[in-house]
Structure formats: structure tokens, C-alpha cells
């Protein structure tokens, strides 16, 4: 594998503003109720010593993706840059991947829907137009990467709490951040080895 794309998200700096959520929607034209990128939040402690944490989540582009293992048609695959992608032509919408993914990163699209009746909003790459009965998820903005751009959520983040780069390059910013702080991955016991890391 040439490179393994990865993302590090600094939870200390995320302000839960959902700029990433909206950038993702604008870049991919996801339909109503579908979010490839979300910001979750978690509250802990007792008043007034409380912690309120914002946690952006997206597809983890795991090195050992459970979704790929269970896919019966080979629609879900890892490309040469470590991205976990879905081939909509091959996908039969069996939803096995949705059950297998421990991160709830995938959504089944039964019918194509628009925010306004018969009014597709003409934004972004029209990669999804016309595909029904398939499963969607974050692509790390594979088409933007091909053009030398960063993923939309990374580019837009106002406090720049997301860093994107190559895990296979020991000098990369993502590796520096993962080494420098107590970085963690979500649900490490699932054995998926996510490419999305968090630091606090």
C-alpha cells in the first residue's frame, strides 16, 4: 500500500460548530437525514464540575474493516490509499455491512430523496445521483484527494482541529500528533484498527 490516509481530531479544540457536518453535506449532496459526518456530544460529571465533550465521527477507514469482511459482493473494498469505499454498482443493499460496522458509519438508501420535492440541489459531486438500494458512507472525500484537495471537513474546520495525512509516512503531521499525545482510536477492542485517531 502506497500510503494510508488517516485523520487526527483534537477533541480539546473541537467547538461542536458543525461546519464539518455542513461541508460534508455540501460536498457530497447527501440526502435528508443522512450524515456521513456527525458531531456527537457527551456530558459527564456533576454540576458545576461537568465536562461537555463534542466528538466528530465519520467512517474510520479501518485497516481491518469488518464491513469489507462481511460484504458478499465485494462492493465494499479498500483502495490502494487505505480508503474503505463502496462500489454502488456492485452493492445489493443487503445491509450486512451496517450490522457489522461498530461505528454506525453507514446508511442504507432505499429511495433517492431531496430536501424539497423534485428539487435536487445542484451542489458537489453528483456521485450519488440515481443510486437507490445501496449503502453509503464517508469516502474521506476520495475525489477531492485525487485533485490534491483535503477532505471537505478538514479544509473547513474553523479551529483546525482536524489534521489529515499519511500514516505510512513517519514524518507526517498525523504521525507526529499520534506520537506526541495520548492518541486513541474508537472501540479498539473490535480489532479494526481505525485510521481516525482522537487526541484530548
Amino acid at each position, binding site marked *: 500500500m502506497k500510503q494510508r490516509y488517516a485523520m487526527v481530531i483534537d477533541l480539546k479544540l473541537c467547538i461542536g460548530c*458543525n461546519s464539518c457536518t455542513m461541508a460534508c453535506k455540501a460536498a457530497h449532496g447527501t440526502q435528508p437525514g443522512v450524515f456521513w459526518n456527525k458531531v456527537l456530544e457527551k*456530558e459527564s460529571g456533576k*454540576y458545576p464540575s461537568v465536562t461537555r465533550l463534542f466528538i466528530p465521527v465519520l467512517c474510520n477507514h479501518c485497516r481491518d474493516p469488518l464491513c469489507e469482511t462481511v460484504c458478499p459482493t465485494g462492493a465494499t473494498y479498500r483502495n490502494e490509499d487505505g480508503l474503505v469505499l463502496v462500489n454502488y454498482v456492485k452493492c445489493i443493499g443487503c445491509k450486512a455491512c451496517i450490522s457489522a460496522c461498530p461505528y454506525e458509519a453507514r446508511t442504507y438508501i432505499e429511495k433517492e430523496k431531496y430536501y424539497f420535492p423534485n428539487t435536487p440541489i445542484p451542489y458537489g459531486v453528483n456521485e450519488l445521483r440515481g443510486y437507490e438500494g445501496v449503502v453509503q458512507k464517508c469516502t474521506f472525500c476520495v475525489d477531492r484527494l485525487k485533485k490534491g484537495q483535503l477532505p471537505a471537513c478538514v479544509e473547513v474546520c474553523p479551529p483546525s482541529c482536524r489534521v489529515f495525512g499519511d500514516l505510512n509516512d513517519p514524518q507526517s503531521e498525523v504521525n507526529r500528533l499520534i506520537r506526541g499525545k495520548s492518541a486513541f482510536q474508537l472501540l479498539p477492542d473490535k480489532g479494526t484498527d481505525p485510521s481516525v485517531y482522537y487526541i484530548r
Partner: protein
Amino acid sequence: MQNTSHNTQEKWIPSTCGACFNSCAVKILVKDGKVIDIKGDPSVTSGSRGKICGKGQARIAELYDPNRVRKPLKRTNPKKGVGIDPGWVEISWEEAMDTIVTKMKKIREEDPRQLVIGHFDFNNANFAHAFASAYGTPNGEYFTVSCGNGLHTLFANTVGNYNMEIDLEYCNYIVLWGSQLGHGVNNNPMPAARDMANARRRGAKLVVIDPICGVAAAKADEWIPILPGTDAALALGMINVLINDLGIYDREYLKKCTNSPYLIDATGHYLRDKNSNKPLVWDIADGKAKEFDDPDIKDAAIEGAFTVYDVKCNPSFDLIKKHVKKNYSLERVEKITTVPAKTIARIAKEFGEAAMIGSTINIRGEQLPFRPAAVEFKKGVNAHKNSFFACACLQMLNIIVGSINVPGGALGSNPIGPIDYWTCFKSDDGLLATNAIEIVSGLEGTYSCFKTPYPPSDVTMPQTVGYKELFPVSGYITTITTFVLAYPEKFKLPYKPKMLILSRTNFIASTGEPEETAKALTNMEFILGFAWKINETLEFADIILPEAHDLERYWYFPANLPASFIKFGQGDWHFQICQPVVDAPPGINDWNNTLIDIAERLGILDEFNDRMNIRSGLRMIPELALEPKTKYTVGDIALRMAKMMGSIMGKEVTADTFTEKETHINLGPKTVREAYAGPYVNFEAKVPVYFEHFIDAGKKVEKVTKDGGMGWWDVSHYNPMPEWRPCPAFEEDGKEFDLFLAATKLPLHYHSTSADNAWIDDVSTRNRFDYCAIVNTETAKKKGIKDGDIIAIESRVGKVVGKVKVSELVHPQVVGMFGIGGHWSKGQPIAKGKGININTLVPFDFNMLETLSGQMDTCARVKIYKEAK
């Protein structure tokens, strides 16, 4: 400038985001006449620098919303009221314009002052206000209550412009007080978010004081919950600790750069030199009084008691020192604010020590005072009846440690413009004044809600619905207009307003009890509304004309008011264009262009061009000035203004200037003096700690209102000394209505007009708090309320129903709200019925309004109970 009709290829067009007033520079990707992407402009280094918020991006969805108003509408139901269906029918533009122009001709013949134009088209105010002047009415008004009457006034008085932020580049101890600077809301949110993140990366401490653990408090090192409306008491308690317990205050700064040494006599006035009438100070070294600006002052006293001209007097700072010691003990402040005395003492000490009084820093070769600690505040502190002094008490924390307009401290919004285009100056008494608003709002006085608050303006019985004539020391007067329109007899206007033109405002949903506020609308004979969606206020209109979206229109130039919407402190000066990136759908026009059409039909085009020349400054450059008998569009005028600004600033601007590569006019970096004005101006133009000019201003207001038959007008706020005063809600016993209301802002909904956006709604529906009320776990338990219950929230004037979240993230005596929801108009079908309209619970009662600044209190007592299904 762009020709939008021939964009067949993909093209990035530079423009300015209109999602809130902050005017972020954006680049918009257009293909086949459609907007397909919006991003921040990376080349605008003191602005968005490539970033843009979710709300700004979500505006794409608005362009394609089928619920947009596309044709003129006429009301068929003569009955008007909250929630009453106007019975709209579509009519032609010709019929609409005929009706409007006939009505306006008649009103103009009777008395043009009967026309009121109310809008919050922030940067374009001068078009509507030039139209108002041309028509002959002084009533071109900003209709907003969402802003800071006491706040903007206090900033103009103390930091030399109408807004204030913190120098996040250097600040090490950041106190956000009822404010979320750098967290996706508040001023200049994109640069502030970047700078706040960088400050946190380098270890700056963040303390947030707020009844609700909102976004900023969530990120803070320490969240200090406080009872709403008690901020001034907490600030004065901290000041007491700093001055009287710890002796931490910047004596040199207070002596030289503030009116702390000015001697005050028993009447509260300055003791003045009998010949020159200048305020006197006591020189300790020579043991005698001297004029405040005497170059021979060696050591001005700020403490002690003196006798001059046989009159006993004290330096103003000495009075404050004694005042806080006597009235703001930690025990009393704890009782008022619910913040533990130990916490108050600790935070005061941390703040005072972090300010590093006496330290300096070298910036580009200039040695400047360095005060890396500051307090920042906005609407949370301001939106109470004691508005001005609540803000002044907090500002006193910055002042006593010398943290005003210096590196690391509290920074005014660019108090000095490029080539001193606007600047600070000193009054006869040596205090700070600014001409920024006169420059920014046009050279023809100010028909908008802003005015210069100091030196005080004349006091006369009001002739305008803006009522500024009775607010001599306020810099921003808004909400009273709604009261004047609702109760014209009470306010003794010499005429009765008959016609209202409304655009980009929704005051019925954003003031107080809608049924009462509605009187301001039902009193009108005729209302013309401009709308891209019909909101609650526009449901009272007689005719609606379709209005363009910001992505379809030009703005006044520069689109980013440079005195506020360029990152404060160090950075570049930049002037942005706002231009249409796509054509408005057929039959939809920018409302300012429609006003010009109306001016033409009324035969007042020459007057309009003349007023526009004066307001915009175009008259200064003959080849750019608008000519008589010529009809211009907003775009024509914006381009002429861009050329004018270019020529003033020494840059050539042509029709092709604003392109994908060259998106804006960049004048290069601010000088050190422009970035940090304090050390350059405050030795001359001093910052007030004591507001002596209020005393006589209040007496004038008292006399004029008494003589005018309005003896009921309250002048009790016209005191010179910063103090805490309880909100009207505090006067109620709290037995039945046992909780207080408070609200926090959400990044996706900042500056509202967001609730009817399909994308934003989709995210908000899924967010934990966005459409809910929040109640503390203990409080909920006592009332038998569970997370997710539908509850009633009731004040003595209204009741709303909504979903509750039970959480530890709120003060136990507070019901918290997130943003503003609860819309009820049919014209906003996405927003309708979602969230809670907090303003419904706030009394629309003149007793809620501070007659010093014009601020309306938003504090209300409420009770909550489970709503029966």
C-alpha cells in the same frame, strides 16, 4: 464585477457571506448559473482565511427552496393579528407598485414623517436611509433588539469603537462572560475561532462565566455558573478583591490614561478650574491641584481626600475604591450571584496576576504595555435593564489592570482606521471619543440607530420614532421604536406613523410578548413588506414584494464594515465586495433596487441620488458622484463606492478588479498604532472609570420630559458610578415563578434567520439541545420532570411548550434555551413549530427598558410543569 448571466463554466466568484452581520469573505463556485459550493476566501488573511461556518454553507439550500416568495402578494383578510392568516393572493408587480406608490404619494403630501422604514439590512442601511431622507421622513430605522444598547455605548466610551474583542494572539487568561467569542458565535467568528484554538494550543487559560454551559463553557478550563442579571455584582466583587484586598491595579495606567485622578466634589461633578473650566487633578508632588492636562503634573493622586477652593473632593478612583469596599463584599456578592466567595476571590487573583501589570512587549520595534488578561462580554451581560453599567462594571476589570487596547488585552474594533479614515479624539474634558460611526454610517448625521454617545447629544422632545433625542449618552438605540409605534400617544410624537416598510426584520418574534408587540403593527394603516420568506412580522403586511437572497445581490461597499468586520489587533486591512453570484429568479428583485424604482415613480430620484452622494461620500469625487435625472442600481452605486474607496486608499479599482485571483482590496498590514491604539491615544484621550457627564445629561432629560408632559420618564440610571441594580424580574417574589430564563447561542443559528433552512434544520433536529429547553437534574427531580418530557414554561405574560433536556449543564435556578425557535408563521414551514420562542415569555412592558441606553431587559421569571398530553 461579475456578469452572472453567462456563467456556463465552473467559476469561483468572490463575494461576502450574508448569513450573519460578520461579513466573512467567501468564494462561491458557480456552474451553469447555479451555486454548487461556498468556501471561505483563503486570501483574506484578517477575515475568513478559507474557513466558513455551517450556517454560511447551508445557504445553498435556501436558493432552491420552493417556499420562497416569487410573486407580489396582497392580503385579502383585513383582520390582522398574531397567527391570523392574511389570506395572501398573488398580484402583478404593476398592481403592487401602483397601490404602493399611490399610498406613498398621499402620505407624503399629508406629512412624510408618517412613513417609517424598519429593517436590519445591516451593511446596506444607507440605501434605505437615503430613500427615507429623499422622501422626507427622519424615520429610517434599524429594527433589531438582538443587539447591545448599553454594550455598544460602553465600548464607544472606553475602547474607541462600538465593539470589543480580546487580543487572542497574546492573551493568556481569557474570561468570556455570557459570551462565546472564538466558539463559532460572536464577532468575526472565523478569525476568532482560529485565534482561540491557537491560544488554547499554547496553553492560554479559558474561564467562562455563564448560567448555561454552552459551547464556550464546554471548552473552558473552568465554567462558573451565575444567576442571570447579576454580572455587575460579581464584577464589582472581583474589583473589590483586586483593589482593596490584593492591591492589584495598574496605578500608572489609571493615573495617566483614565479619569481616575479627576477630582469629584460633593455633587458628584468634576471640580473644575475657575478660569479654564477644565477638570482638576491633585498633584501629590507639588501638593496642589492642576488642570488635568497640565504637562507639569508629576504624580496625580488617584486615592485620598483633598480640599481645593475650600471644597472637599476626592479623585474619582478613590470614590470607586470606597464604593466597592462598602457595597460589594464577597459575602453579599455570593448571595446575589450564587458564585461562592472563595471562587470569586480566586478568579480575581488569577486574573490580576495574569495581567502582569508593569510588563511590556516589543512589537515590530515598538515597546508597548503587555497585559495578557482580559474579560470579554456581549449580549448576555448587556440584555438587562441595568445594561450600560453592567457592561461598565465588567469593563472596569480590564481598565484597572490596564488591559485596554494593548497587546494581550481587550481590543476595540479597530478604533483607528487606515490613514485615520476614522479615528479617536479627545473631548474638552480630555476623555475618549470616536467619529467611527459618523464615517461608517455616512456623512449626513445618523438616521440609523447608531449615534455618537459622547460628548452627550442635545436633548429635545422626540420628533422621530427612533427617539434618540431622549438618549443623549447612548450610542445605539433600538427597541424603543417598537414601544413608540405601539403606543404613539404615550410617547407624544407630533404626528402618528401610518405606513411601515419592513425588510429583513422580525421584531414580533424577537422582542417580547407577541400580542403586545403586535400593536406596533396593527396601528399602521399600511404595511409594505419585503420577503424571501414570510416571517411572523410580515404576516401583518398589506403587500409583500419578493426580495432577493444575499447570493443574488450587491451590497454597499465595502461589504465588511471595516470598523467592525476586520479582525481586531494585528493583521491586514481588507475591503470586500458583495456581488450577485447567480441571478435572482424572474420577478425577484433586491429590495434596495425596488426602493429606487419607487423613488423614480414618486419623482424623488434626484433627491435620492443627492442623499446617496452625501451618505456614501461619493460627492467628494465629482467623476463618481451620482448625477441628477439618472437612475442607478445598487450595483452601479457599489462599484462607484469601490472606486472611491480605492482612490482614497491609493488603489486603482475598475469593473474587473474583483476576480477569482484578486478577490478584495488589500491595503497591507495595520501599523502598530492601528493594531494597538491604547498606548498611542489614551495619554491624550482618557478612558472613563467615572461617568460624570451622565449627571447633567440626566438632568436635561428630566427637564425636557417633565416640560413635555412625560414626567413618568425614568432618569434614575443617570448616575456616574458603576453599580449593580436588580432586573425588574428580581422585584417579583419568586414564589410562584421560581426559575429564571436564560438563553445561549448556537453556532448554526448565530444571528438567527436560520430556522427555516432545510439543512440547518436537519442537523438541529439531531443535535441534543437545539430545539429544547434545559433544566438542571436536581430541579427537574423536585418537579417530577424527566428527560424528554414535554413541559410548559410559563411567565406572568406568556406560556410556551417544548421538550426538556435534563442535564447538569445549567444553573439550578435557570431554564435554559438554545437559540430562538418556536416560529409560527405559515410562510416558514420548515421552522414552524420547532423549538421554543423564548421572547414570548418576556414582558413587553416599558418598565423593562433602560432609559439611559435604550436596552430592554430579557430577564423573566418562569415556572415549569409537565404538560398534560
